[in-house]
């Protein structure tokens, strides 16, 4: 199969790049490793500084990508091999088995109802469970079930319940070979694993929280899910015991600007998303108290400082200091910190503490693609000032958080930039 461009990664960057290329008339194949496109952005609640719901921006773009005549989607698929011969790239893509026939499944969810196994739900970072066969999330594109054989009891209930006979346990991985003229890498980021910061007492992992020593210490993506309009709970509750949290704190720079954890970089978005979460929290629970522990508030983008000032004026507390440890008292997290503006050692008890975790690189494909990464695993555009999306390989471009943590406006701009470079390149090599 031949396309003009392969876009790797179906997050906001990949979607934006695909749509731009499609609009300009090029055939695009968008490959996503997860069962749905949407990336991290679709999991967010609302986005700074406009407080639009993330879904309002992402879902129409997801729908547009799915219905665009020039954009072709391949979800639950991974790029395994890339070979450049002449002006073409020969690419092997592995289509992982969903154990659900995509063209038959109507996304009705009956399989999920009858499945007897519960697994922490990835989309909600484990604050609730899903089944072993499941629809990834309400607004998934494509909205098709996927069966997690790893956690399956093989009882066959789903297969019997499916009205369309879409469940197929015999699916095998399928290798598809395609030829493209250019590639855009939009593989995004990985989250910092909060359990690595031992002092903060998060004992689970990114998608496992209920067995934590204290499930009221959560990470910021879990908070996004708690605040999101599509949240799994009926109200804003803390996961540890279902209480409406009356005092919530955010601990910035968890896993960022921290050499001892191997990540001295700043994650660029945590300040603003924490400020935003504090705003959303106080609007959801007007009598709630919100406090943010920070080193520097980095409100640098267009409209960010204004947003930060507004939230500050609304009465959210900002305490400057690097949190030393988090302990527990009667199920409540206790933040221990030196306030660096007063020198006072504080022990502040909260109903819930949110660890504002940072963004790490996702260099998974660097060897396959043959493009350089820096020592932190982010792709390095060799002439970043002149052309921030070009790589050392002619015809491969990179966009979004694959090169460095980035907020959504910057990511969207870069994705379009990669599309522009791609168009210029395609025009030069001839289409």
């Amino acid at each position, binding site marked *: 199969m031949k396309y003009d461009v392969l876009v790797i990664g179906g997050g906001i960057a990949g979607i934006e790049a695909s749509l731009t290329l499609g609009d300009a008339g090029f055939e695009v194949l968008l490959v996503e490793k997860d069962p749905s496109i949407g990336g991290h952005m679709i999991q967010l609640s609302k986005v700074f500084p406009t407080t639009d719901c993330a879904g309002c921006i992402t879902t129409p773009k997801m729908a547009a990508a799915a219905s665009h005549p020039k954009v072709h989607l391949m979800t639950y698929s991974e790029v395994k091999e890339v070979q450049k011969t002449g002006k073409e790239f020969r690419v092997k893509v592995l289509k992982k088995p969903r154990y659900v026939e995509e063209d038959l499944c109507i996304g009705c969810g009956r399989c999920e*109802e009858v499945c007897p196994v*519960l697994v922490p739900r990835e989309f909600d970072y484990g604050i609730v*469970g899903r089944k072993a066969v499941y629809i990834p999330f309400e607004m998934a594109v494509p909205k098709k079930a996927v069966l997690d054989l790893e956690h399956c*009891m*093989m009882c*066959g209930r789903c297969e019997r319940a499916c009205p369309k006979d879409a469940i197929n346990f015999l699916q095998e991985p399928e290798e598809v070979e395609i030829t493209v003229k250019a590639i855009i890498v939009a593989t995004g980021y990985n989250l910092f694993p909060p359990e690595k910061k031992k002092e903060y007492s998060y004992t689970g992992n990114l998608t496992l929280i209920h067995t934590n020593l204290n499930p009221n210490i959560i990470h910021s993506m879990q908070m996004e899910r708690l605040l999101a309009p599509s949240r799994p709970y009926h109200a804003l509750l803390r996961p540890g*015991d279902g209480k409406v949290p009356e005092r919530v704190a955010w601990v910035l720079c968890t896993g960022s600007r921290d050499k001892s954890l191997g990540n001295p970089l700043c994650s660029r978005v945590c300040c603003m998303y924490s400020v935003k979460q504090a705003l959303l929290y106080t609007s959801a629970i007007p009598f709630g108290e919100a406090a943010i522990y920070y080193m520097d508030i980095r409100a640098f983008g267009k409209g960010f400082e204004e947003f930060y000032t507004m939230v500050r004026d609304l009465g959210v507390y900002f305490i400057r200091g690097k949190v030393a440890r988090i302990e527990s008292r009667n199920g409540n997290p206790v933040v221990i910190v030196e306030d660096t503006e007063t020198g006072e050692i504080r022990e502040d008890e909260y109903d819930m503490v949110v660890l504002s975790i940072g963004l790490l690189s996702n260099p998974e494909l660097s060897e396959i693609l043959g493009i350089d990464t820096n020592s932190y695993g982010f792709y390095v555009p060799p002439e970043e000032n002149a052309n921030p999306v070009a790589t050392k390989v002619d015809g491969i471009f990179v966009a979004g958080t694959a090169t460095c943590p980035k907020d959504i406006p910057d990511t969207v701009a870069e994705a379009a930039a990669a599309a522009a470079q791609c168009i210029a390149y395609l025009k030069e090599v001839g289409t």
Partner: protein
Amino acid sequence: MAEEQAKKELTVKKLRDRGVKPREEVIEMAKEQRKIIKQISECLKAGPKTIPEIASEINMPVGIVAWYVLTMFKYGQVEPGEEIDGYYKYKLVAKGGGK
């Protein structure tokens, strides 16, 4: 139709016939899960309760109970009632009411 029916029984069985078996841990885990959900449901039959109340009654860590109760909410098995001091009381959804 008969063919479809035949196929319907087949794929999971066929896979088992090939010697692929579910993992022991998964079977154990599912058993444990069924037990907890049953305990929570039993406990709620007596009337609406908050998550800490359920936890102390069935003598389980409250964090784990919270996860199950809220997952049961997501699947329409329980629903929240009144809120007292920040805690909602949950009650079972009448059979057939949930999805």
